[in-house]
């Protein structure tokens, strides 16, 4: 199966969108599910990414990812027409979509990407939809237009106030909970800290809050247990039992610590990638300057 990159776009400084050929996955996937991909199957790492969108008819899936480390940087370096070495999916349980009344979708940073198909499905199921999109600054806001089209109300916040309201996502979320028409469901996806505080925000109001966890993964099939988290005192495997869980039950502190297990090695890989990219750039520059001479 050739997973050709049909389209690639840069959405913000570090964030890329790719449409990849994957007919079987496009046909089988449902909102909330993810894939595991590899840029190289010999020595490459397997990384999980959410399926942000898909078209079963034309046989593609869409991923939106942030180039944060070794593998995502290598992925970002691929061009249209090239292929992704391995794509496995769709993995995990689909989001349970139902008509609840008022649904609030909260996305932080890159988390807006995995949130998009869920928001789409919630809207299609007949819910009133409020979307809160948060980012560190203006340049990092993604999918604003798409969300605007979908949502009954869209609230954009940035940490530094460079765009939308200067706030963390938890502020508008608290206000929504305090309003007369409390949300019936909150779906929060973003960095673990954000999900943790979103869950803390809704907890006193008793609003059901789903989060989608982005733990470390290897196989994505339930075989290794590397993705395990504590949910309500029980150990769950995110890849097969999740990725969505009741945010009020998740032990986020433990999850964040486990996410950092390989921090030093990841840093090293990132620096090597940056160094390689810089070297390639220098080589190109030298080459070009030689050509102009």
């Amino acid at each position: 199966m050739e997973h050709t990159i049909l389209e690639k776009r840069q959405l913000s400084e570090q964030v890329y969108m790719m449409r990849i050929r994957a007919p079987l996955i496009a046909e089988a996937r449902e909102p909330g599910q993810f894939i595991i991909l590899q840029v190289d199957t010999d020595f490459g790492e397997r990384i999980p990414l959410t399926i942000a969108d898909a078209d079963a008819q034309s046989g593609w899936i869409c991923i939106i990812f942030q180039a944060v480390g070794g593998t995502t940087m290598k992925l970002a370096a691929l061009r249209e027409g090239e292929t992704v070495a391995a794509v496995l999916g769709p993995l995990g349980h689909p989001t349970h979509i139902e008509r609840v009344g008022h649904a609030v979708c909260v996305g932080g940073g890159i988390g807006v990407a995995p949130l998009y198909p869920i928001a789409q499905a919630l809207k299609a199921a007949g819910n009133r939809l409020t979307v809160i999109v948060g980012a560190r600054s203006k340049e990092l806001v993604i999918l604003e237009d798409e969300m605007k089209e979908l949502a009954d109300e869209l609230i954009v916040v940035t940490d530094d106030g460079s765009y939308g309201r200067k706030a963390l996502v938890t502020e508008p979320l608290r206000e929504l909970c305090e309003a007369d028409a409390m949300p019936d469901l909150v779906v929060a996806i973003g960095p673990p800290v954000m999900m943790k505080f979103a869950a803390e925000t809704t907890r006193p109001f008793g609003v059901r809050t789903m989060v989608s966890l982005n733990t470390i993964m290897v196989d994505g099939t339930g075989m290794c247990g590397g993705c395990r988290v504590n949910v309500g005192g029980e150990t769950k495997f995110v890849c097969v039992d999740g990725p969505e869980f009741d945010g009020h039950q998740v032990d986020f502190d433990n999850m964040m610590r486990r996410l950092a297990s390989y921090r030093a090695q990841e840093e090293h890989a990132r620096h090597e990638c940056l160094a390689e990219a810089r070297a390639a750039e220098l080589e190109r520059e030298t080459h070009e300057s030689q050509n102009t001479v």
Partner: protein
Amino acid sequence: MSHRTPSELREEAKRILEEFTGMEKIRAKDRIAIPQQEMPSQDPHARNANMYEVTYGYFEEQARVEAERCLQCRNAPCVEGCPVRIDIPRFIKHAAEGDYAASLAVVKEASLLPAICGRVCPQENQCQEYCTVGKSLKDTFRSVSIGRIERFVADWGAGLHGLPDDRLDEPNPLPPSARVDTPVITASGGPDSSGVRDVPDVKPPTGKKVAVIGSGPASITVAADVRREGHDVTIFEAFHKPGGVMIYGIPEFRLPKRIVEEEIHTLEEMGVEIRTNFLVGQTRKLKDLLEKDGYDAAFIGTGAGLPRFMSIEGENLVGVFSANEFLTRSNLMKAYDRDRAQTPIYHPRRVAVLGGGNVAMDAARTALRIGAEKVYVIYRRSRVEMPARAEEVDHAEEEGVEFLLLRNPTRILGDENEQVVGIEVLDYELGEPDESGRRRPVPIAGSESVIDLDTVIVSIGNDSNPLITRTTPELEANRWGNITTDDNGRTSMDRVYAGGDIVLGAATVILAMGEGRKAAASINRMLAEDGNHVTGPAAEQGVT
């Protein structure tokens, strides 16, 4: 036991062989007196820092001598102990005569994967447990080394037997399975052995299609046996590389990847299609394969890939891994090759491995090889009760693994950053034997002690992976999640067969292979019966 060099072992075998040449008849008494041939291996102090295969395999002289130890018993009790009933005395006789091709052919009548089984079968609980020589010496471990002879003839067939002369005088020579053109720690070799691969004949196309799910030993066997009958076979494997546990679990130093790759390559040459990155149940439902994609039958060989944890305090601390995760990172993702692999592996310094099976030994020895200073294996019972192959336990000990027996962890201790700092263990003593005849370990109250550690690898076994049964409601499974089958490997679902660990629970390669044989035979039978009254459109097109 002091380490004997390969040359010493070879010289000894040569001497013994000379004594026999020209002898008309060797008496049973003399055969029993022949010293058992020791397996040549890398020096323990060198090998615990590299990933190459630990054992070199017998030299030809050793294989001959060991084969001479066999008494050619009429009743062949060893065969009774062999799960696939290899004609052991016959293959050994050919080996003793130096006709290795004939010997290998006898093994292959019953076993599809001799190079693998010769290396990983628990022979001391199978054929060798029943061997007359072992019985007369009152020591199973001195039985005829059936497995080592089997491995020799299989390696001979692949051109990988015996350490080559030009490596003999090196201080710690690379094993024959290692490729010389690769640096100290190697990525596995490719399917380019100097031996001749004999690709089994495939009958003319029948137009029937069979889906084989998973690519472990059960599936490999089914694919080969079904393909031979001329049916189209597609293997669907979730991982990016086929081979199952033999690729992702069992490490290179015990089962070189090139040997498994060789088997996969043979399947490809037979015309079996292999689709990796395909998770049946998720990528496509089993039912759709049969109903929409035109498969006439399916075999499920998805293994026992669901790691058990102990449910003790501290199991989710940073630094606690399942053996599956640790081994997959190292083997499949090649994380031991720190310069090239993108997948990180934890840097363990002081490690406890919990459990006493093959998986535990593999995890412990891998930890040593990636640089751990101290590795403990903590096991609840005593050494004789360890389910691991005896040879692996010996090897682990020689390499410096320390066994803490009759001890069981009660909790894992962490610091303020939830990082593992130690493990609390309770001492046990052996009580009365239980139903299985094993003496039950009983805890000694108040005997808790703490061992300082930074890494814990949980290796207490695997349950069946529930993915397929969860997504295929028609399939019946027992309460442990194992798919239930009849004697012919048939499941509760029409045209669907299963075998290997998904049926047996975590078992062995040879049992998986045996199950595969059985299921393949019933699939072939069913398809042949179909063929008597139906001929699909594909059959007329003669799909190859």
